[in-house]
């Protein structure tokens, strides 16, 4: 009996030893050159961004991290499922890595896909402390490609993270250079009339909210793999090849709208997890999200990867080309985004009386269309007889956008109607939102609603309970919080091992918040039931409510926060404690009792 157990243990041990990989990272002061400016920053192994860490599913990794800074540091493996004390959040996972110290992370790789790593100390991440992780699966990928590139974006700012935080605290609009001006007033007057424009300005002024408040921090240079637009990172290809692009948004604050004019992008992974492939013309990548796409350039020409920030205050640019030095044209940025009253709709206690005069003219009414003029009554008598011979390929040109106004459609399953290329209204944005994404070429823009798990990780089951998290803040004071409470004043969120919690995010602010739960997957409710995708970062747009479910399968304590660096630092952050779990991994509970609890 005893020997059998031993051999069993050994057999388990042997492959593990073969598979163990050892890696070294140093955390260093580095120079960052964006082409627009050069600054001091923080990097790994002497550069920012740090290296691509290539792991294999099933491998056990040992990563020795040496801190060459004169301050504490840490590395968080963003999106990786691992023991909580390896998660790299100072004060939650471990105390942090002291100057001069080497800390060894050790954990098993239990997943595949594209992820990233970054410092979780102070503002080291916006200062440059980030890199990418690529994990090769044990089996084959459910898609094919001939070559692959990591495409890691960031919003590199000439100011240090500390300085940006301080400036935002001093003047929340310190960096905003797309505010409404006298000139915009007059152009709005000529478009919407004088009284409408005055009413619009009064409504917003009454709330003391800015339509232009889309991005807190302007003035950055968008980088791709550490290269500014003029430095033009270039990936080579042979025409006809399939290229897998692993997009990672490592920005401190910036969402990017990404397109490659001339190429369809087939999204095959979101946040490292395989999704049912969906072809798009453009997609928006939230801060900390990753999307893997497959493109197939057939022509012997250069293609521009163009990533405009959501608020259009800056862009990143790179190139795919058959030869070094070839360049595609760089399109101009589109008009700066403007919030609408729809984006304010999540705010409690708003004076809706003053909204009666609001400018509906600015709202995107595309989803209500103007099909009202259509006569549906005669449809019964239409001739379908030559349907078989008709060319379905042209069907995409028809206008579905107005169909919601059709009578008698109630029996249809709208849930399954993705509406493909015609749908202009993304259900993950407030109806009429000024942030509603639109593809530059009028084509398909990826929505969360398009993301369906390729091979669901979890069985569907009823959640055991719901936890409401209102995303709250005060733009004028630059305070950010959850349920009106900043992290400094908050009790931890307590979950029980084995439960399935349904989180309800209600965004009561006018900013977009990419919410990141460490250690456990976020199953985003996109209305696809068992096919709901799993992610590590969930974007919640202003004025919307988003649900996600979490199988509480990781004991310990974890961070849960908005991934916008300055929102997290201002208080939109929580500690999550998972109580119970398998005995061997169960953590001591005396600290738990001391900390109190909120849920």
């Amino acid at each position, binding site marked *: 009996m005893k020997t059998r157990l031993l051999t069993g243990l050994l057999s388990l041990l042997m492959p593990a030893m073969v598979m163990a990989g050892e890696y070294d990272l140093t955390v260093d002061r580095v120079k960052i050159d964006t082409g627009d400016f050069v600054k001091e920053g923080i990097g790994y192994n002497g550069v920012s961004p740090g290296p691509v860490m290539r792991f294999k599913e099933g491998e056990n990794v040992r990563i020795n991290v040496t801190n060459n800074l004169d301050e504490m540091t840490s590395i968080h493996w963003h999106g990786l499922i691992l023991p909580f004390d390896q998660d790299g959040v100072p004060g939650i996972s471990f105390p942090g890595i002291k100057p001069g110290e080497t800390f060894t992370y050790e954990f098993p790789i239990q997943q595949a896909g594209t992820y990233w790593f970054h410092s979780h100390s102070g503002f080291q991440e916006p200062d440059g402390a980030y890199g990418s992780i690529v994990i090769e699966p044990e089996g084959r990928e459910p898609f094919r490609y001939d070559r692959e590139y990591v495409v890691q974006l960031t919003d590199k700012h000439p100011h240090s993270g500390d300085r940006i935080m301080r400036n935002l605290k001093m003047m929340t609009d310190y960096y905003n250079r797309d505010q409404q001006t006298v000139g915009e007033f007059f152009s709005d007057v000529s478009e919407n009339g004088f009284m409408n424009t005055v009413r619009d300005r009064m409504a917003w002024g009454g709330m003391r909210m800015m339509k232009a408040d889309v991005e807190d921090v302007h003035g950055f240079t968008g980088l791709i793999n550490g290269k500014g637009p003029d430095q033009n990172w270039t990936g080579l290809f042979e025409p006809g090849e399939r290229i897998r692009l692993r997009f990672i948004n490592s920005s401190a604050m910036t969402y990017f709208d990404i397109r490659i004019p001339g190429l369809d992008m087939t999204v*095959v992974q979101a946040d490292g997890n395989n999704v049912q492939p969906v072809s798009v013309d453009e997609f928006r990548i939230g801060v900390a999200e990753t999307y893997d796409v497959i493109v197939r350039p057939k022509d012997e020409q250069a293609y521009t990867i163009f990533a405009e920030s959501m608020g259009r205050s800056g862009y990143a640019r790179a190139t795919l080309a058959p030869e070094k030095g070839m360049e595609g044209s760089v399109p101009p940025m589109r008009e700066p985004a403007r919030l609408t009253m729809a984006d304010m709709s999540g705010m409690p206690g708003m004076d809706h009386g003053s909204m009666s005069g609001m400018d509906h003219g600015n709202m995107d009414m595309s989803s209500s269309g103007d099909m009202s003029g259509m006569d549906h009554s005669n*449809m019964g008598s239409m001739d379908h007889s030559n*349907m078989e011979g008709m060319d379905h390929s042209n069907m995409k040109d028809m206008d579905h956008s107005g169909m919601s106004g*059709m009578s008698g459609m109630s029996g249809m399953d709208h849930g399954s109607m993705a509406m493909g290329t015609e749908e202009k209204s993304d259900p993950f944005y407030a109806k009429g939102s000024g942030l509603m994404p639109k593809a530059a070429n009028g084509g398909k823009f990826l929505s969360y609603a398009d993301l369906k798990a390729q091979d669901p990780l979890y069985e569907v089951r009823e959640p055991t309970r719901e936890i409401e998290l209102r995303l709250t803040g005060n733009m004028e004071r630059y305070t950010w919080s959850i349920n009106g409470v900043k992290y400094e004043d908050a009790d931890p969120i307590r979950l029980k091992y084995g439960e399935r919690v349904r989180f309800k995010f209600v965004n009561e602010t006018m900013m977009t918040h990419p919410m990141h739960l460490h250690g456990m997957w976020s199953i985003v409710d996109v209305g696809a039931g068992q096919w709901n995708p799993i992610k590590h970062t969930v974007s919640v747009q202003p004025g919307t409510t988003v649900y996600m479910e979490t199988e509480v399968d990781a004991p310990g304590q974890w961070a849960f926060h908005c991934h916008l660096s300055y929102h997290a630092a201002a208080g939109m952050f929580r500690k999550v404690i998972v109580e119970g779990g398998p005995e061997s991994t169960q953590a001591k509970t005396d600290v738990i009792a001391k900390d109190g609890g909120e849920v």
Partner: protein
Amino acid sequence: MTVSKFLVAAATILLSATTFAAGTHGGGHDHGAASGEPGKASEASRTITVEMYDNYYEPESIIVSPGETVRFVVENKGNLVHEFNIGTPEMHEGHQEEMMMMVEHGVIQGGKLNHDMMSMDMGNGKTMKHDDPNSVLLEPGQSKEVVWKFTEKGDIEFACNVPGHYQAGMYGDVNFE
């Protein structure tokens, strides 16, 4: 089959017919021009089993000789609906837009086919059925046969045109001896 479903489908078809009126009449359902022709089971020289997974085939290439008739046994071993369709890349591209319509109208729903929708009578006994001889559309666990005669050499692939699948790499090469 509800009246409303019928109305939607009817409207769709009417509208597309209208927009189509100015277009050209190429591609579309005009299968078989360059990829071969439906074969007779009795003339099949051999049987090739093609397994469909999410989202790839096994095998990912086959070798045939010009004029050969092959009996394909296609099995869907994945969790999603997949297609096995023999054609040129251009034919596949054309067919993908039809398949997109099928998804948009709920005919293909992840791992299920809405057979009601497919066999819905559109007026003159015509339906949205996916019943061309060069292809089969299978739910998980289903298995069907395709008998095909590769009349001449050409740039031929077998492919799944469920939206996104072909782009993600769900195709196989037909190589000629």
